[in-house]
């Protein structure tokens, strides 16, 4: 079946270009929806949703991702990932709680709302310790704190200069990983491909210059990725895993996952796998709509 897909975006990265190419090669129709140009009302929006089988959220801005997916769900337009998944994955506190509730190993974390309470949490963890913003990506504004002097300075800066979200102090144990972490792209929990991201720096994000190479997804990693996916609600996700020496821990699940680095690192045709999954989701949405009418 030919799918008519709405693509929510404000920036076309290589990830979106790969996807657009695959969709068009298969004869699907893509309506690119630049969310910067749109207005969203309570019952409808400026977006022409007529005939759309599915909307795919590829917003690079988290705030736009969270709200636009909610609007499309409110308009009964099938959207992936769901707003519930976006809401959980875009917030580190919610992600940590979701992983813990599902018994998925995740780094020990404490949240505090004042600099003094955060300092006490930091001292409880000991040094080094990690302080992260609750909303943010690409390793931005993450601090590896080595001593109390650095802790005091960073907390004071956040409390004084930060947006109110920076007054939610997300303090996390420092995991002594072996200079790399693992990224697994999953489709409703099914691993598509994995890679390791290695760097001398403690932050090993690919877009921060980490070296990437293919990682063979073991059964244990596949099970862990599936559990992490299920914990946050499933969909098209990037599960980030650290090796702890005697096991694994999931530190992040990304809901608008980038896969250009993964595509370059592995032999798997990642955009093709994503489009296979989108076709299935569009089919499911069409079947659900037909059942609702009948």
């Amino acid at each position, binding site marked *: 079946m030919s799918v008519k897909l709405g693509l929510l*975006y*404000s*920036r*076309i*990265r290589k990830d*979106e*270009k790969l996807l*657009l*190419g695959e969709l068009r090669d298969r004869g699907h129709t893509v309506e*690119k929806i*630049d969310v910067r140009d749109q207005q969203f009302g309570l019952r409808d929006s400026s977006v022409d949703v007529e005939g759309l089988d599915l909307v795919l959220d590829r917003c*690079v*801005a*988290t*705030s736009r991702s969270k709200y636009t997916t909610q609007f499309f769900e409110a308009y009964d337009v099938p959207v992936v990932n769901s707003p519930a998944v976006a809401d959980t994955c875009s917030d580190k506190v919610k992600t940590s709680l979701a992983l813990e509730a599902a018994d998925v190993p995740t780094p020990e974390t404490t949240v505090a709302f004042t600099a003094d309470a955060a300092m006490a949490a930091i001292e409880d963890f000991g040094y080094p310790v990690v302080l992260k913003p609750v*909303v*943010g*990506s*690409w390793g*931005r*504004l993450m601090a590896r704190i080595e001593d109390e002097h650095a802790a005091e300075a960073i907390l004071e800066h956040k409390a004084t200069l930060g*947006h109110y979200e920076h007054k939610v102090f997300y303090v996390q144990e420092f995991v002594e990983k072996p200079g790399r972490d693992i990224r697994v792209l999953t489709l409703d929990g099914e691993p598509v491909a994995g890679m390791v991201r290695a760097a001398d720096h403690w932050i090993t994000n690919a877009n921060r210059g980490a070296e990437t190479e293919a990682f063979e997804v073991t059964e244990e990693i596949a099970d862990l990725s599936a559990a992490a996916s299920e914990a946050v609600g499933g969909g098209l996700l*990037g599960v980030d895993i650290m090796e702890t020496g005697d096991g694994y821990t999931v530190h992040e699940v*990304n*809901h*608008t*996952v*980038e896969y250009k680095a993964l595509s370059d690192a592995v032999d798997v045709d990642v955009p093709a796998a994503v489009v296979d999954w989108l076709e299935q989701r569009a089919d499911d949405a069409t079947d659900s709509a037909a059942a609702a009418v009948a």
Partner: protein
Amino acid sequence: MTACPECGADITLHDDIEVGEIVDCATCGTELEITETAPPVLERAPELDEDWGE
């Protein structure tokens, strides 16, 4: 071929450009957004926002 709106240098674009795609000016390094494709129109791309990511 089109001109960088920042420095005026000529920029060669791929055949498969997309509205919303970002290109870098090789001369001044400015990030430029393709806002139209036929003919190509380039504008300075938005600065990275705090909530950008994946």
